[in-house]
């Protein structure tokens, strides 16, 4: 027999949304039932304010454990129970490293202008690869959140890559508006890169402080777009934007490293030891 939730239990069930989705789906029924047991026990004991004390203790417990569960969710598992990164993770991570490296390379070596499109395409491919890698990691916990964050990143980088590629193919579908559409694509790319970085930082996914750097660096990089650096304040915007682009490139490299080296949970369990063993 499964009794209906009381009003207290319904409120507590609502508060369980503070836990990661996967944890909630697995344990919410049991936690609500345990909370109900605690309330019934408090009433049975008849101590004044028993239900209020139960609520207070439970709210404190919820605040601490929900936060820790979010922090723990994406932490790499213990090496004793972890397997080497998958081939897909390594490939996506390497693509991210390559994308960041070619972006940073522009600071160090002169690149043939005719090959600039290749550099940008690799950069976009790296960002898309990291987006896919993070989605693979996050989707089991919260698929909708993961898609909501990663899909704009991938679409904006793909859009920018198309805008880079079209002129090399001799195509100009936007006629006189091409420059403006390109500007929008670049703006969308930097903004979604930034949002992606801030979300990585916020939810504690892989290398969270690198996520913060990506978020800030990408925002600063916007200042380097044509419409900003051609004004009176170019002396300020240009170096700040260059620093932002550098931080962005470095962040993709570090995220790529984190993805490529991240150990994953193994299906193997510790060997069973018989009772008394």
């Amino acid at each position: 027999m499964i009794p209906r939730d009381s009003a207290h239990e319904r409120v507590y069930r609502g508060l369980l949304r503070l836990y990661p989705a996967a944890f909630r789906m697995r344990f919410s029924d049991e936690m609500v039932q345990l909370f109900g047991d605690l309330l019934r026990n408090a009433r049975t004991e008849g101590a004044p304010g028993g239900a209020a004390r139960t609520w207070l203790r439970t709210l404190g417990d919820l605040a601490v454990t929900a936060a820790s569960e979010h922090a723990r969710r994406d932490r790499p598992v213990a090496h004793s129970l972890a397997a080497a990164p998958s081939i897909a993770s390594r490939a996506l991570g390497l693509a991210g490293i390559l994308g960041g490296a070619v972006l940073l390379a522009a600071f160090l070596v002169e690149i043939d202008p005719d090959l600039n499109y290749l550099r940008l395409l690799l950069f976009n491919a790296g960002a898309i690869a990291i987006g896919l890698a993070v989605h693979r990691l996050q989707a089991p916990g919260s698929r909708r959140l993961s898609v909501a964050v990663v899909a704009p990143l991938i679409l904006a980088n793909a859009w920018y890559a198309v805008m880079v590629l079209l002129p090399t193919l001799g195509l100009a579908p936007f006629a006189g508006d091409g420059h403006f559409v390109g500007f929008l694509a670049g703006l969308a790319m930097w903004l979604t890169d930034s949002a992606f970085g801030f979300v990585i930082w916020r939810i504690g996914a892989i290398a969270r402080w690198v996520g913060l750097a990506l978020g800030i660096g990408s925002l600063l990089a916007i200042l380097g777009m044509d419409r900003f650096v051609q004004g009176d304040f170019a002396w300020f915007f240009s170096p700040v934007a260059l620093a932002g682009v550098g931080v962005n490139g470095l962040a993709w490299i570090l995220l790529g490293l984190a993805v490529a080296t991240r150990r994953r949970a193994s299906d193997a369990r510790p060997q069973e030891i018989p009772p008394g063993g």
Partner: protein
Amino acid sequence: MYVLVAIGTEERHGYAIMREIARMTEGATRLGPGGIYTTIKRLLDDGLIEECDERPDPELDDQRRRYYRLTGAGRAVAAAEVRRLESLVRAARPWALEAVE
């Protein structure tokens, strides 16, 4: 460790584990639902406990209850921790209690 010891040789659900921890620590440690189930999740992930297949009789108990028991690895970890604590207590006993009395 508290949860491992509280389960012991029994099959226990979350509320029973919580009560057993409060009993064996004489009320000094009281875990809430979050504390209990985040720990249970970690122990399940590490293979130290497992969920029992059998559910309670619906006439006798709430079917939402899930029962947990130690695995062989869980018993081994509990035994190793007990040995570690015993050696620690042995080393500290000659002087630690005198120091505060």
